[in-house]
């Protein structure tokens, strides 16, 4: 083989232009662009979060305590370590304006707030001015959403607890926000000192205290973290620092980005089908050229190299154009996107997502072109005087091995870039399985069409359509493969999304309580219960003491050593106590303590979670509550059902273990919808410090979040579908010559243009609908598996989405088919037929 000769021939061949490679290029460009675009947005957000880390956090570092403020010793350490410290209390409460009440997340700040960044207000006044005491009334600022809910405007008097405040401004931008917009209560900011006399922040109130530290320049954050952990050991504190100012958001964006890129890979796989088809069509037209080259002395390796070089050059052009598009669009639209993002982003050219997209594309091109290229090697000089057809045999073993290696490399690269091996393997398996299923479905469809053709007597157009689907040269497999994958993903999303949202928004409110009431003081409990007992609209009230604690140790060792990264260990959890087994509770193992038990602390643990964490009866767990470690023996396991949104505690201790600690009560109220407003009004009036959380509002929030996730995934799947559409156009274009010929014969036999058109349309629509049907079956199977195995929810087929998928498949196929039907129906038969003589 002579590589330079192969290159020279390759360039001569490409001199003719890129006519036969438009679909090839389009598939590469679209696949690269989709992945590069998602990657660029992800990197831009990551960079934004990194740069704004300190601002998002509100300081160089933050120490969070649950349920209490720092004691003198802790505060002294902070004052010594930092140049300045800002103390914030963060908790939920109710804001009241005239007769309107709304849940709000209160940030009670000190004079140092904000340590970093700027709180932007409307009207544009300073924080100290906004929160200052004026005419005996302290100021507060709130998020416009809350003001809108209350119907309040700056200048109005708003009540928090039992105290009145003046709404001085609305929050335009809160620098230290880490929630990316998800929260039940919109923000209210107030001076902590102003809350005195409001009845809020009493002992037992559920709140977090946040200490933002402004550290000396050049302070080593990891050293500082270790120092804090050592100095404040046993305090139950949580450390965050500017290296990752919004860990939740960063992780969410990272996971969502990785998932969308994997969805993008399915688009690349569909594009691969189109790339292979385009190359096969191109090589089929080159059989004579190859035969001539072989006749005049070119060996197989030269032929292979010649066309590999052409494929490589085209792939390079496609990847370059795809990267320009995929990076150019988000960077070009940076200001638009930034305005809509709830998190900071720095849009720029990031090499990592570009390299990732290029590697994926290059490997995909290789995977889908090696096979046809290897077959081109097999063209014999005899093809010159025999029927010139490309070989359709299995290529040599080394080419199969090379293809398998390329697939393995692609999976390894995807696992590396996504950082999630199992998700990658599931996705790769899913794509491969889906492609195989779709290929089988295409073959099945051909057989079905062949068998049913005989039953179409009298329906000429339908008969032709079935003959074309079931006969030689059928495009059934091409259509099903190109549309099937995108439609399958869309079908699964449609089914999962609707089922999940139905389960949350439809079924849950049926069994869930109307309200959660938190921060009820012990002395308020009798009055609280009395108001509900005399209300006929109330079906049931559950109440329990509520503390929060962090599970730190299991059997004297750090809890993570036994339970890994189980969710129960992530942050603080609700802990309750009870003398006797609460109503509707079932002990599954062990025994409940006696009613007057006052020995060493014992704990009853949720059974399912205990099993997942590897806890056994008799194990000792240490829970840090209010900075105090309480070690208790696991004496029983309980069944806890979190799916009803009712009251469910992972840990319940015996009464004596916790009763002395400052705490409040939590209550769930199950009431008729008509009674809800009056309950809220009366209880808020009587107990202004109590916070009510309406379950329906929470359900709506979760439902909206799910809708957002589903829509992001649907956009990813749409890119796959668009690639499928391109592949379909390619298939239709490649098939057009055959359709023109067929139309010419039919015209000769007396078929009108309308009949020919209806035959072509019917064929395209039938194939598209069938692709939709196959995708629907795959989507329903996937959705059922997700609902059944992962979500643990009931599953029922969503017929509206199902019909949409089938109709969508038919429409897309019809559009691609009709675009290429005008040529065949307008042919003059003689010209086409004589050209074939």
């Amino acid at each position: 083989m002579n590589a330079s000769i192969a290159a020279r021939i390759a360039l001569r061949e490409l001199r003719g232009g890129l006519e036969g490679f438009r679909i090839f290029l389009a598939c590469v460009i679209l696949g690269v662009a989709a992945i590069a675009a998602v990657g660029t947005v992800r990197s831009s957000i990551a960079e934004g979060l990194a740069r704004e880390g300190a601002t998002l956090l509100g300081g160089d570092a933050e120490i969070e305590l649950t349920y209490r403020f720092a004691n003198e010793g802790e505060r002294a350490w902070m004052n010594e370590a930092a140049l300045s410290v800002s103390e914030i209390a963060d908790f939920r409460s109710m804001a009241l304006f005239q007769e309107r009440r709304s849940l709000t997340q209160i940030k009670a700040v000190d004079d140092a707030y904000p340590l970093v960044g700027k709180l932007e207000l409307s009207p544009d006044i300073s924080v100290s001015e906004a929160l200052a005491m004026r005419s005996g009334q302290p100021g507060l600022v709130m998020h416009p959403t809350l003001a809108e809910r209350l119907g309040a405007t700056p200048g109005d008097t708003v009540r928090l607890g039992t105290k009145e405040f003046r709404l001085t401004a609305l929050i335009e931008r809160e620098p230290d926000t880490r929630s990316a917009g998800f929260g039940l209560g919109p923000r209210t900011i107030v001076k902590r000192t102003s809350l005195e006399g409001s009845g809020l922040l009493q002992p037992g109130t559920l709140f977090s205290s946040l200490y933002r530290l402004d550290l000396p320049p050049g302070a080593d954050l990891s050293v500082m973290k270790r120092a804090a952990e050592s100095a404040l050991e046993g305090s139950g504190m949580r450390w965050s620092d500017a290296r990752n100012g919004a860990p939740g958001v960063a992780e969410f964006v990272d996971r969502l980005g990785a998932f969308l890129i994997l969805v993008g890979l399915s688009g690349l796989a569909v594009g691969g089908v189109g790339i292979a088809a385009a190359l096969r069509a191109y090589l089929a037209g080159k059989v004579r050229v190859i035969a001539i080259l072989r006749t005049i002395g070119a060996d197989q390796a030269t032929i292979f190299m010649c066309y590999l070089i052409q494929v490589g050059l085209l792939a390079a052009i496609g990847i370059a154009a795809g990267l320009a598009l995929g990076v150019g669009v988000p960077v070009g639209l940076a200001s638009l996107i930034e305005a809509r993002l709830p998190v900071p982003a720095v849009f720029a050219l990031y090499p990592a997502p570009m390299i990732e997209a290029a590697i994926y594309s290059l490997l995909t091109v290789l995977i889908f072109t090696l096979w046809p290229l290897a077959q081109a090697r097999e063209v014999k000089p005899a093809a010159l005087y025999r029927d010139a057809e490309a070989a359709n045999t299995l290529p040599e073993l080394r080419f199969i091995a090379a293809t398998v290696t390329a697939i393995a490399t692609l999976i390894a690269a995807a696992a590396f870039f996504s950082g999630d091996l199992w998700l990658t393997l599931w996705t790769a398996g899913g794509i491969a399985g889906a492609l195989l299923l779709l290929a089988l479905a295409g073959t099945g469809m051909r057989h079905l069409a062949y068998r049913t053709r005989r039953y179409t007597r009298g329906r000429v157009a339908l008969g032709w359509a079935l003959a074309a689907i079931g006969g030689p040269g059928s495009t059934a497999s091409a259509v099903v493969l190109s549309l099937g994958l995108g439609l399958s993903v869309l079908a699964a999303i449609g089914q999962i999304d609707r089922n999940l949202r139905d389960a949350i928004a439809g079924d849950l409110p049926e069994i869930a309580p109307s309200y959660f009431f938190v921060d009820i003081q012990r002395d308020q409990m009798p009055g609280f219960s009395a108001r509900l007992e005399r209300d006929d609209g109330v079906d049931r009230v559950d109440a329990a003491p509520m503390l929060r604690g962090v599970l730190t140790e299991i059997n004297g060792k750090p809890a993570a050593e036994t339970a890994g990264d189980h969710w129960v260990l992530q942050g603080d959890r609700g802990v309750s106590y009870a003398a006797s087994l609460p109503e509707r509770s079932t002990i599954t193992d062990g025994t409940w303590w006696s009613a007057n038990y006052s020995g060493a602390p014992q704990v009853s643990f949720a059974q399912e979670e205990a099993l997942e964490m590897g806890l056994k009866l008799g194990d000792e767990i240490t829970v840090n509550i209010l900075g105090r470690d309480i070690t208790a023996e696991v004496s029983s396991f309980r069944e806890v059902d979190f799916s009803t949104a009712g009251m469910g505690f992972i840990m319940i201790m015996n009464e004596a273990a916790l009763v002395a600690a400052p705490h409040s009560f939590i209550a769930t109220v199950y009431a008729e919808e008509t009674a809800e407003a009056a309950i809220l009004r009366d209880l808020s009036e009587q107990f202004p410090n109590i916070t009510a959380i309406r379950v329906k509002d929470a359900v709506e929030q979760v439902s909206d979040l799910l809708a957002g996730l589903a829509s992001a995934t649907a956009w990813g799947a749409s890119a796959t579908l668009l690639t499928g559409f391109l592949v379909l156009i390619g298939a239709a274009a490649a098939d057009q010559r055959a359709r023109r010929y067929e139309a010419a014969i039919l015209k000769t036999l007396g078929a009108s243009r309308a009949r020919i058109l209806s035959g072509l349309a019917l064929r395209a629509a039938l194939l598209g609908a069938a692709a939709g049907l196959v995708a629907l079956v795959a989507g329903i199977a996937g959705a059922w598996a997700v609902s059944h195995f992962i979500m643990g929810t009931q599953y029922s087929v969503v017929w509206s989405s199902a019909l949409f998928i089938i109709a969508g498949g038919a429409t897309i196929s019809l559009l691609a088919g009709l675009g290429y039907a005008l040529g065949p129906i307008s042919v003059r038969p003689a010209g086409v037929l004589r050209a074939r003589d």
Partner: protein
Amino acid sequence: MRILEAISLDVHKGDTLGLVGPSGSGKSSLLMLMGGLERASSGEVRALGQDLSALSEDALARLRRDHIGVVFQSFHLIPTMTALENVATPLELAGVSDATERAQAELHEVGLADRAGHYPSQLSGGEQQRVALARASAPRPNILLADEPTGNLDSQTGAAIIDMLFGLQARHSATLVLVTHDPGLADRCDRVIELHDGQLTERPQAPDQAARAL
């Protein structure tokens, strides 16, 4: 470029007409004009009393469906359809209720009853041309147009096809126009027209010549 110029030709019902001439002389173009498969840039083409140049594409298609059968050198069967489906298609287009049965009978006529379920790619050239003949004759056309029907066949197969073609023409009393390079084949027709540079001349046929050739 002018292919046919200032020509006039009448073909009567039941006639068999041979069109001969060198390549590029316009034989096939003339045949295509007769079948309404091409349109003349000027002049008039009438068939079965209708002015073809005045008919729309679809009207021409209907005329062929009901009255004209065409046989080509390259057979031109629909590759996605079986032999039976190919023959049934013009009958189905005409709304014939027993199209499949009649198509089966036509295949039987040309000796291909046992190949009905085969696709064109599974048939030999001779078999494909027999299917094409069956398809052309199935609707009982008034006119049969054949464009070098033996051009792609060996002489033995070709002769068998020609016998069948003339047999069908005789059985249905159709008018047959046959384009051929083969003088012997042309001599089997009642009339022979020679084309040269777009001009036609009728070759005198001895009254008994056609009969003898048979």
